[in-house]
Structure formats: structure tokens, C-alpha cells
């Protein structure tokens, strides 16, 4: 509160300065506002649904330009010790795929020290693979008598709600009953968005009005799931920046509420947009601390972005990527396969 008052005071000063300046300048006359014309008639809007793939696509076929970047490496024929030029190419390729300065430097150190052995591409593939964690199973069962909860967190617009829609579809197709909790009570029309996904997949949706307490919605959804004997609750949360203590505290509270009574949070997924650069590391660090993130869903890998930052996240924080989003259709979600991921980065 002290900070708030100090800032208000400082800004007040600014306001006064602005006022004085404004006074000194000639008062500009703004165009007079014409009287408001009647509103155009509003029609009901239907969402045009895009045709979706029946089969989940494989990563190799959907990762667009990722491969292209690494082509230069594949064409390098060197084995054994590497020269400055070759190391520079490897460095460029890694940096351009958002692997990041620190992880790139460590991989380069390894190459410099150990040479390329059986060739640059296989060596690099091994080095990247070694950065990734080994254990990435998805926990989907709670202890007896409780309801398993998957909580979804992340910054704005990364694909949390869409991912929930896709996962609901997937779980229901596997014969499980799913309740969706519209825990984003902040963003305009967030519950409607989730509601449309619920309709597509046949999941039940629990929602309350905008501005309500997100913990309460999730609590209700868990109660509902427990009463119905449902298997899984997928809980959406509002997108939030990861550099705000208040927003992270709120998230920690939401997680505590979800992990109480009949609910048991078995997975907390941080949803990450593959276009994200180095900021993804601090996102992961903050969300890990606030909400005990247990897995990452890497979305939008169907575009030109390479998603290389997950290599750094797995290496530095040990949070495994568990699913990959490759489109906007309900089937466009696949389990993350590290070998395939690394291969698709390096293989042409």
C-alpha cells in the first residue's frame, strides 16, 4: 500500500505538470461529437468450424520449417574435431531455433571438447537428446475416492483453452468421463469459448459469471465430478503474466483449492506457445514455483516456430513436455515424443 500511495503521489505530480503544459498550449478544439446514430442490428454469430483431421497427425509431417533450419547441419560432412566455421554454423542453427544462449553454449562446449565423432548431425542429435528428461508419463488417476484434476496455466493467448478442448476430446474418446471447469473468470467470453469446446467433445461444463472467484468454479466442478463419479476434471485458468507476484499468488491459491477435499491435482500443465523466445524460461520458472508445474504442452508447432526453448526448459528446470499442439482442430494434439522431436529438428 505504501508503494501504491507513493506512486499515486508521483503520478499526481505528473498530472499537474501535464495540466500546466496543456494550459500553456492553445486549447485544441476537438471535433464536436455528432449525436450517436442507432446501433446496427446484431445478428447471432455462429462459429464456422474448420474441418478437423480424423487421425492425429505425426509430428514429422506437421513441423513446418523446423527442419529447414537444421538442413545445413545435415549437409556438414565433418567428423572428429570441428573448426571455427562449423561450430559457428551449429551455433547459428541452435540460436535461430530459440534454444537459447546458455544451452547453446553448453552444447558447443561439448562439441569443441569431444569433436563430432561419427558426424555433426548424429552428435548434435545426441547432445540435444541428452538435454531432455527421461520420464514424461501422464498421470491421470487420483487415489481411490478422489477425482483427478488437470490444471492448466500459462500466459495469455498460448492455447490453454484450446488444449483443454482437445484433451477433453481425447479423454472422452478413450472412454473416460470429463468435467470442464471454466476457471478463467477474467477474460471476456472465456467461458463461452470453453463451452463451445465442451459441446464439441461432449464434456460437461461448470461455469459461473465473469469476475467470480476462479477457485470457487473449480471447487464446484470437482464437487460435481465427484457426485457424478466422473474420472477427470480439466480446469482452465485465466492467462496471466508470470512476473506479477499477485497473479502468481492467486494461481497458487487456485491450485490449493483444486487439491483439497475430493479433488487431487495429478498434473499441472503449463501451456507454452512454440513461438515464444527466451521469456519462456522465466515463465516456466515462475509457474513452477507458484503452481508446481508437472508438464508442458507445447502448442502451435504447426507453424514456422521451432519451439527450441523447451530444450532449455527441460535441461535447466527438468519439466517435461508431455503434449504437442499441431493445429486448431480437435484432433490436433499428440503426445510428445522426444526422439521424434529431436529427429524432426535434424533430419531433412
Amino acid at each position, binding site marked *: 500500500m505504501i508503494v*501504491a500511495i507513493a506512486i499515486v503521489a508521483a503520478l499526481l505530480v505528473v498530472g*499537474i505538470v501535464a495540466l500546466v503544459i496543456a494550459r500553456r498550449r492553445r486549447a485544441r478544439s476537438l471535433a464536436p461529437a455528432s449525436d450517436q446514430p442507432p446501433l*446496427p442490428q446484431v445478428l447471432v*454469430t455462429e462459429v464456422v468450424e474448420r474441418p478437423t483431421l480424423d487421425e492425429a497427425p505425426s509430428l514429422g509431417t506437421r513441423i513446418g520449417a523446423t527442419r529447414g533450419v537444421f538442413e545445413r547441419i545435415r549437409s556438414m560432412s565433418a567428423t572428429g574435431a570441428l573448426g571455427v566455421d562449423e561450430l559457428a554454423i551449429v551455433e547459428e542453427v541452435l540460436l535461430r531455433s530459440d534454444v537459447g544462449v546458455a544451452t547453446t553454449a553448453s552444447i558447443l562446449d561439448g562439441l569443441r571438447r569431444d569433436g563430432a565423432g561419427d558426424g555433426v548431425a548424429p552428435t548434435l542429435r545426441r547432445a540435444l537428446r541428452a538435454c531432455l528428461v527421461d520420464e514424461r508419463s501422464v498421470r491421470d488417476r487420483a487415489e481411490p475416492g478422489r477425482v483427478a484434476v488437470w490444471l492448466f496455466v500459462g500466459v495469455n493467448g498460448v492455447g490453454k483453452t484450446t488444449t483443454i478442448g482437445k484433451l477433453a476430446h481425447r479423454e472422452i474418446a478413450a472412454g473416460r468421463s470429463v468435467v470442464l471447469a471454466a476457471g478463467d473468470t477474467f477474460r471476456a467470453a472465456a467461458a463461452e469459448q470453453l463451452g463451445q469446446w465442451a459441446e464439441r467433445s461432449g464434456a460437461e461444463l461448470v461455469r459461473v459469471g465473469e469476475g467470480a472467484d476462479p477457485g470457487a468454479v473449480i471447487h464446484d466442478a470437482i464437487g460435481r465430478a465427484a457426485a457424478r463419479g466422473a474420472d477427470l476434471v480439466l480446469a482452465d485458468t485465466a492467462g496471466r503474466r508470470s512476473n506479477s507476484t499477485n497473479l502468481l499468488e492467486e494461481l497458487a491459491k487456485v491450485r490449493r483449492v483444486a487439491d483439497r477435499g475430493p479433488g487431487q491435482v495429478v498434473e499441472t500443465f503449463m501451456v507454452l506457445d512454440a513461438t515464444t523466445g527466451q521469456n519462456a524460461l522465466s515463465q516456466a520458472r515462475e509457474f513452477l514455483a507458484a503452481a508446481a508445474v508437472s508438464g508442458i504442452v507445447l502448442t502451435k508447432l504447426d*507453424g514456422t516456430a*521451432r519451439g527450441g526453448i523447451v530444450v532449455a526448459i527441460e535441461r535447466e528446470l527438468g519439466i517435461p513436455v508431455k503434449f504437442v499442439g499441431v493445429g486448431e482442430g480437435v484432433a490436433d494434439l499428440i503426445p510428445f515424443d522426444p526422439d521424434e522431436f529431436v529427429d524432426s529438428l535434424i533430419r531433412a
Partner: protein
Amino acid sequence: MFDTLADRFERLSASLRSRGRLSDADLDGALADVRSALLEADVELTVVRAFLDALRVRLAGQALNQSLTPGQQVIKAVHEQLIEVLGGSALKVTYASRPPTVIVLAGLQGAGKTTAAAKLALWFKQQGRQPYLVAADLQRPAAVQQLRVLGSQAGVDVFSDASTPVDVARRGVAEAARIGRDVVIIDTAGRLTVDRELMDEVRAISDATSPHYTFLVIDAATGQDAVVTARSFHDTLALSGIVVSKLDYDARGGAVLSARGVVGCPVVFASTGEKLGDFDLFHPDRMASRILGMGDALSLIEQAERTMDADVVAASAGRLMDGSFTLDDFLAQLNQVRKMGSLGGLMRLMPGVTKEMRSAASNVDDRELNKIEAIIRSMTARERREPAIIDGSRRSRIARGSGTTVNAVNQLLKQFGEMRKMMRQMGGANPTMPPQMGKFAALAARRGADSLPAGFEALGAGMRAAPAPKGKKKKGGRVTPPKQR
């Protein structure tokens, strides 16, 4: 925004400050540091290289400058180079001679187009225009509803219908012309550049509406892909500029630095917070100062001018200076300040603010301010006029009434007293212009100055005075940082 970059440069200049001369080794070391600072900020690789080459040339040419320390030399060179990379001057919006002026927003999924559309609409409204929003995103579930809600928050009407994106856009523009709106902002669906079909669609929207401006919205946290994306959209749509979203997310903003260098497409607007008002033209020179941690007083003043109600400010300005400022005045001012945007975002613009203050401010949110408001509103009219009469029993009544604690009420009253004292000291002889602020105001009045000199001593001093009580508090045994609550 650009926090990391600013921090890195701050450290860099501190380490160079003590040196008397810049040796070749120093220069190499400094350049290596700049390189990794830029890479960690997601600046595109070719842009990094060009930046370093240019910096080397600049520094070599400056070697004879005796009046600057080596650290200052590097910082000055980086500052100049940044301005150059970011692009000369801010966009000057020109309006179509036959309204409406049509603006199309495009971008990847989740980039922040819908929010940017509403913010842009509000911005035009504040410029005295009559904007109109068109919801041509029929792709994402509930996107139209989202725009409707945001539109009503901005007080701007939204057009939509259930046809196709191209038709909605065309009809929206026609409707705007019919009802006499002079700026139309078209929100389109997010799309990937590899999706030919959807790229053709956005092209068709553009062909059907012949926009005067086409803006690409890019998330500030985007990595190296930003340039790839910008280039593809530019090839399809001939962009007039880039709107950077979410610049408050500890984003290092490398995308901003890279876009112009690689694609030749300047950043024209930047969104710096969650409120609709946290949005403004992008000023390369000011941004360069901000990246280097110098603050941006001009933007702050402009934001104040645009959003604050001059009469309300004027009414209490006089009382403020002669010390008869009341809690009522404070409440009125608080609401004025709130209109300007989030405190955290505003604080970043304030020159001479320490990093600690900045990060503390970014954690002050609406609830904090609500609490302050609730406390004041729980006071009687007389208490607000004469806070001195508020004794122990009144304090606990106020705490109960506002749902806070006596401690919080105490804090508020104490802080208010300090603030009043400080303002009185600054007030001095001239009631309309506190003397310490003269310099700052003069500077600010010189708008359009090429770049901001780093010395905003006057306001800097004011700011350092402002959080002073926090030090005093500490003496009283408070060890926790002066955060909220």
C-alpha cells in the same frame, strides 16, 4: 518491458564506469556482453550482427571523446544505435480524406489482436475520432463475444454478422460509412503463415476493404520466429506497421528490435498493460531510453494529458501546494491516476526510478487500490477533511467498515501525512508550478526533442523523495519489503 536488456546494460555500464580508458580488450568484452544481452532478448541473429558491427564503428569513431567515461561512451553509442535500429520517429496517423479510415489487424493465433483492436479503438476515441470495430474473426470460439465485451468497455460499437470473414469486413466498412464513423478497425482470425488458405483469406479481406493501414500484431515475447512471421505477412499484405502486444510481460522485446531491421517494417503501436488504456504510439527514441533504463517522461505526460480530467487535477493542485489537500482530493486523484493505466506500467515510464521501486510497483494491482478506496470511503466527510481527528476508535470503525485492518488504516493515514508534507515542500512560492518541477516541465514541453537526456534530476529527486517513508518504516522494525498489504 525490456527489463532484462535494461538490466544487462546497467550492469555493463557499472562495470565500465570505473575505467579511465577503453582498451581493445574492454571493447571486445563490452561487445560480447552486448551480444549476449541482445540474444537473450530474442533479437534476431542477423540484426545482432549488424548491431555489433555498427556499434564497433561508432565506438572507434568516438575514441577521441575526452568528456565521456568509457562506460558512458558505450552507453551513448548503444543508445544512438538503438534509435537507428528501432526506426527514426513515431507514426503520424493520417486520416482518409473520404472517411472511414480502414485499419486491418492481422497476426498469428493468440498474438493479442482482439485486445489490440479494442485498445486501438479507445486510442482513436481519445484522439477525438469515432471508431468502429468489425469482428471478422469467425474462427476462434467466442472471439466475437470477446470483442463485444471489450468494445463496450471502450465505449465503441462492434459490427458482426454470421457470413464469411470477407463479407463481414466489407459490410462492416459499409456500415461504418453509413452511420458516419470515421475509423474502422477490423479484427481478423489468427493464422499461421504456412496456412495458404487462410493467408489467401486475409489477403481477400484486405482486397475487399482496401485498408489505409494494415498492422501485424506480434507478441513481445516472440522468439526468432518473429521475423519469419513478419516477413510472410509483409509479403502477403504489404504491412504498414507492427503493433507489439504484451510488452509488460517481462518480455525482452527482441521482436521489436528486429522487425524493422529485417523486414523494414516499423513498430507503430505498443501495448504495455492489461488495461485498455495501456496502449500508445511507439516512439523509437523514447523506447531506446527505456531499454537503457532511462525512463520515458514524455510518454508519461502524454498519457496523463490524454486520460486525466484537467478540471479535477486543477481543483486539487492548488490545495495540494498550500497543504490543505484532503483525503477527498486524494481519492479523486487516485481515480484520475487509475484512468491512466496500471501503476506498474506507468512506473516504468518514470525516470530516475530504481529497479526495486519498479518491481514493487509492478505488483501493485487493482485490489490494492480498491483497498485504499474502501478505507477512505469508510470515513465520514469530516474525517476526510481533517484526518487529524481520526483516533483509535475511529480507526477500528474504519477498518471494520472497509473490511481491512487497523494496521492498514494506520499505514494509509501515515503515508497520506508524509505525502502532504512532501508536496507542501515542493509547492513553495509558485502555486501552479512547483519549482523543482520546472526543469522537468520545460523538458517535457520541448516535445519532439530527438532523444531524452538522461538527467531528469528534478523529477528523479521528486521520486526519491516519494518513497522516503519506506526507509523510515524499516527503522520501525518492518523487515518485509514495502510491498502491498
